[in-house]
């Protein structure tokens, strides 16, 4: 057994020991407030057990281990349905990024520990009404104001902003230069005057995303995390962090074994559904795809353990897994015939095919739309040309809206 194997075994046994208190079953029937409180409690316990901030430096309250241990733990944790969703953005991007880019180290340490314990939550204010895939087209602006900055504008699709204490954001500080060059990166206090959060109800009924209005919010210059005009680079560094997040070949939907069990109890044309060729074909093809993604993930982990960069094919996971989860969810609903219309509003998208189906479109858009992922693969891996970009090289203020 390697050190990694024993790390995995210990992590699993700790997770099992707290699953009854925090896992899927313990959460059933809770209101969102109760669930969030349970999540905060779980994070505190996880931190005390030594599984908080696994890859963050010890001097900032982390465990000082590598991405390998972090991914191992996250992969194990995924199966238990723990109440961690509220903190996934917070601990995923903002916390590591403030460790890298905020100068006041004592302040950073205090924030990191509070975030790891679930006492504080960070959000990421990137997208806007007119800037999603085209992040550098954002319009919310920061203007010099005395010793600091005054910010105005609107952010959109901000996950868990309604519970957030702090946020990281990119703002336009110069509209007279090309769009990528006029951006600057800041952190903001979500409780500051002029910050207003309005939850947005999504198609599946959930409201984990928000619109955030910034109205003459004052920032000190110490809240700036990049050189003026150097914000896009830090934004890219933020998005790169996701390369070391745990992946899921189920596309964060139910597993294939779940579909098999569903089909076992159903009939098509009076015969067992599992004997139907169309059902068999869908199961087999999904198995082959998921096995391929799992094998890619295993090799990426082995590369990391060997101190090498994982191969670029890791970029395929989200594209393939979520798209196929969407179609498989449709099949699962079809299989139930007339009864397929029923819907359990408490169903989780990781267990319940209808919940999975309703939430799947979000998965294909959030964190990089399918089309952008295909562009990235084409351009970064296959060296194909960039799309034609009429806004290239001209100042932001001259771009036709």
């Amino acid at each position, binding site marked *: 057994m390697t050190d990694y194997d024993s790390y995995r075994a210990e992590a699993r046994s700790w997770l099992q020991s707290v699953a009854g208190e925090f896992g899927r079953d313990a959460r059933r029937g809770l209101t969102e407030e109760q669930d969030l409180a349970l999540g905060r409690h779980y994070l505190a316990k996880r931190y005390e057990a030594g599984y908080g901030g696994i890859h963050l430096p010890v001097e900032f309250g982390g465990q000082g281990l590598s991405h390998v241990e972090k991914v191992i733990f996250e992969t194990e944790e995924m199966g238990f349905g723990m109440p961690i969703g509220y903190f996934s953005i917070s601990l995923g991007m903002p916390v590591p990024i403030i460790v890298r880019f905020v100068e006041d180290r004592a302040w950073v340490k205090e924030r990191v520990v509070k975030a790891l314990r679930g006492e504080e939550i960070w959000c990421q204010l990137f997208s806007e009404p007119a800037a999603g895939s085209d992040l550098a087209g954002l319009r919310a602006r920061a203007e010099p104001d005395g010793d600091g900055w005054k910010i105005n504008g609107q952010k959109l699709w901000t996950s868990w902003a309604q519970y957030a204490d702090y946020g990281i954001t990119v703002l336009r500080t110069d509209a007279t230069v090309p769009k990528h060059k006029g951006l600057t990166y800041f952190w903001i206090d979500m409780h500051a005057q002029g910050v207003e959060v309005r939850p947005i109800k999504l198609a599946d009924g959930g409201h984990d995303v928000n619109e955030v209005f910034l109205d003459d919010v004052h920032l000190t210059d110490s809240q700036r995390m990049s050189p003026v005009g150097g914000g896009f680079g830090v934004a890219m560094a933020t998005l790169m962090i996701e390369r070391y997040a745990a992946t899921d070949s189920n596309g964060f939907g139910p597993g294939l074994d779940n579909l098999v069990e569903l089909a076992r109890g159903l009939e098509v044309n009076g015969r067992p559904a599992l004997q139907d060729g169309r059902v068999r074909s869908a199961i087999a093809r999904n*198995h082959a795809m998921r096995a391929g993604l799992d*094998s890619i993930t295993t090799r990426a982990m082995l590369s990391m353990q060997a101190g090498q960069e994982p191969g670029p094919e890791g970029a395929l996971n989200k594209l393939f897994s979520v798209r196929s989860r969407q179609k498989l969810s449709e099949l699962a609903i079809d299989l139930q015939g007339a009864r397929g219309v029923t819907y359990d509003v408490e169903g989780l998208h990781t267990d319940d095919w209808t919940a999975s189906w309703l939430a799947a479109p979000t998965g294909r858009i959030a964190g990089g739309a399918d089309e952008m992922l295909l562009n990235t693969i084409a351009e970064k891996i296959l060296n194909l040309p960039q799309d034609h970009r009429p806004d290239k090289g001209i100042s932001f203020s001259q771009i036709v809206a």
Partner: protein
Amino acid sequence: MSFLYDEGHHAIATESRRILDARMDKDRLLKLLEQIGRYDEPFWQTATEQGWTALAIPQKHGGLGLGLIELGLVAQATGAHTAGAAFLTVGYGAARGLLDGIEESLKTDWLPQLASGEKIATVAFADASAPLPPASSVRFENGALSGTKSAVVAGLRADVALVWARHGEQPALCLAELSHVSRNPLNSFDNSRLYADLVFDRAPATLVAEGEAARRIALETLAAMAVVTGHEQLGGAEELLIMARDYALTRKAFGQPIGAFQSVKHRIAALYGLVELARANCIHAAASDRQKHFLMAAADVRISATEAYDTAARDCTQIHGGIGVTWEQGIHLHMRRARSLAIEQGNLLFWEDLLVEQMTGVAA
């Protein structure tokens, strides 16, 4: 279990590719398409000379004692060139079937000759449209085989065949020399595969295995060949991906390389995804040989590699436009090979059903 290729593996991949790059010739392959009974002799000479026939045969039987991982890497290189690798895969399959069988004298008689390439072996499992029928129509009685095996790869040239047959009510695996067997040539869209119906009429044969053991060995042999073929499909698909990409970078229309149009670049990016899924499944399956979930891993290979190669053939041709459908340009060598390999070693329908049966215990 997936793993990372080591330096030795990389050396096999690079070296086999280098040799084939130097020796293969597209025009030579194009000529073979219109002739029945001819195969690419220079390729076969290379394969025996390089020891590829010996690669996965144990050392004590005159082989090099390596396994599916190494043979897979060679098959991948041959796939990139649509090289005439028919004998390589089925020759390995026949050797493996013999090794797993009961008859020691068959091993000592045949394996060294198969390893050296002196003799060519094939595998004849399919009856009509069934890749591995529950009960074969070919009967083994009194030391002889009678019946017909359909579209046997390398059937026009092989010296000997491992045959899926029936002995009374029991399944049986037999080895038959083909000198006294009639071979009815098939005109196919990929003629260098040497497809023939083999008609056995009381042809002398030796029992390799019988009953459940025969079924298990046949299935495992088919799975192992499917993994080798999957690598060959992967090699072909990857080559087409590169051809499509290179063409999209150089061909211009409407004032820019066609690869700048999303309809083209996304098609190529999606193809890259299919190629990487196939590769991932190939690596996993090759390393899972003789392990518990090998049949499932082999099925995953077949499904993803077939999808990758067929899609690559379609899309690479499409991206090339008119030039892509010319005889001379030769993309159709891959288009044809993508389909012939999709059928050899069991079609998708067979592997999908087998996979689901393995997963759920429910037969089709």
